[in-house]
């Protein structure tokens, strides 16, 4: 539990960073997902915004992101720059295989109303909490949720590999039945979801194609995970797709009564 709270530091910071976290959408968009050659670079944008891949609100804090190489090494995010509405960085791909850029958190969040009718939340906006503080500050009648958030994107040099796709068994995670860098138009793309390592049945998933700005209707694809925790997509148009999965149930460990998870990724669907 203590570990969760400590990991939770980053989640709280990330949430606090966005004044309207629930109304905005977080995304990391690589310029491309597949490269060939000996030493390639891929550039990334990251933002918390109204628009999918249109940075219009808040630049993503980059200190929470970690990049992992196919062999498991931590890779530096190079040329980091936090601009007004988006953050940018580059990754140098010196190994062959699939890399991951990710941020994950698992924390407790509490809300309650005091005797004067005032509403409170813990940890406070912009604050991070410890287990000690939780015990001291959060009253017993508070509505406590165990909240996991994960955002990750994958890029590949050469052929896709699976080493960075392994799950941790904590929070809401994606099980890549289709490799995220091997998605093509006209072929089934199947992803599963797990919550704390178990199948996340009934999670709601929304998939939005890039170019939302230029469409009258957002044309979101809304899906729900089946009994196996899976969704299957089959898209006609190549492009970058933003995917967000949300899951909630009441199987939380005390002191939480709710278990909530959010998972976000970006999938490039290629044409053949």
């Amino acid at each position, binding site marked *: 539990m203590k570990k969760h709270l400590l990991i939770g530091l980053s989640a709280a910071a990330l949430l606090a960073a966005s004044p309207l976290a629930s109304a905005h959408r977080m995304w990391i968009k690589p310029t491309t997902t597949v490269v*060939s*050659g*000996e030493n*390639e670079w891929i550039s990334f944008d990251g933002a918390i915004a109204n628009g999918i891949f249109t940075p219009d609100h808040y630049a993503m804090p980059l200190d929470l992101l970690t990049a992992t190489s196919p062999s498991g090494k931590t890779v530096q995010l190079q040329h980091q720059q936090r601009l007004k509405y988006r953050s940018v960085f580059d990754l140098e791909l010196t190994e062959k295989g699939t890399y991951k850029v990710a941020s994950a958190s698992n924390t407790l969040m509490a809300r309650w109303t005091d005797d004067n009718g005032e509403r409170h939340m813990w940890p406070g906006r912009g604050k991070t909490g410890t287990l000690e503080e939780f015990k001291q500050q959060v009253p017993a009648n508070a509505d406590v949720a165990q909240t996991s958030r994960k955002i990750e994107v994958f890029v590949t040099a050469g052929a896709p590999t699976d080493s960075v796709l392994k799950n941790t068994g904590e929070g809401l995670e994606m099980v890549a039945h289709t490799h995220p860098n*091997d998605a093509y138009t006209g072929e089934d793309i199947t992803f599963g979801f797990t919550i704390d390592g178990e199948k996340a049945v009934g999670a709601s998933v929304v998939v939005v194609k890039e170019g939302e700005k230029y469409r009258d209707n957002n044309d979101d694809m809304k899906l729900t995970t089946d009994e196996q925790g899976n969704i299957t997509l089959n898209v006609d148009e190549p492009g970058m797709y933003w995917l967000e999965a949300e899951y909630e149930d009441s199987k939380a460990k005390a002191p939480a009564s709710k278990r909530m998870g959010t998972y976000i990724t970006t999938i490039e669907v290629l*044409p*053949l």
Partner: protein
Amino acid sequence: MTLKKTMFAGLGISFLSAFSTIASADEVKITLPQLNVAEYHAPYVAVWLADSRKKRVEDIAVWYDVDMKDDEGEKWLKDLRLWWRRSGRTLDMPVDGVSGATRRPGEYTIDLHNSLSAQPAGDYILYVEAARELGGREVLEIPISLPVTTPLSQTANGENELESIELTLEPK
């Protein structure tokens, strides 16, 4: 130099077609179009044989900027999108006997004898894919049934990056 090469290739073709009855010609002729564009880069071209399930059986030729320093030419191999997925991404380029320099517009003939004679009987697809820097991409394919029992000549015409491919097979 380039011009000379093209002319030799051209001569080769006419020779073969003139004497096609005696040549045991298992070959594919690839014609790269003359394009009227401001900045022309010779296309990357991949030629490969696939089985009826479109899985790569053998890479026959990959023309790219093999001589660039630090293997920089390999950066653009992924633009041969179909070949890259079916084969290229798992290869360690360059591959002897497969990798070759890019070609300028003209006709080129590739001998398929060794590629085809090694295959068991069955249905195959010959793919030719071209992708050009600052240009487009095109894939042409011709189905092949092995073994060949009657002389066969089949052509597929392209619209932009490939003018045509012409497959000629002779029974053994």
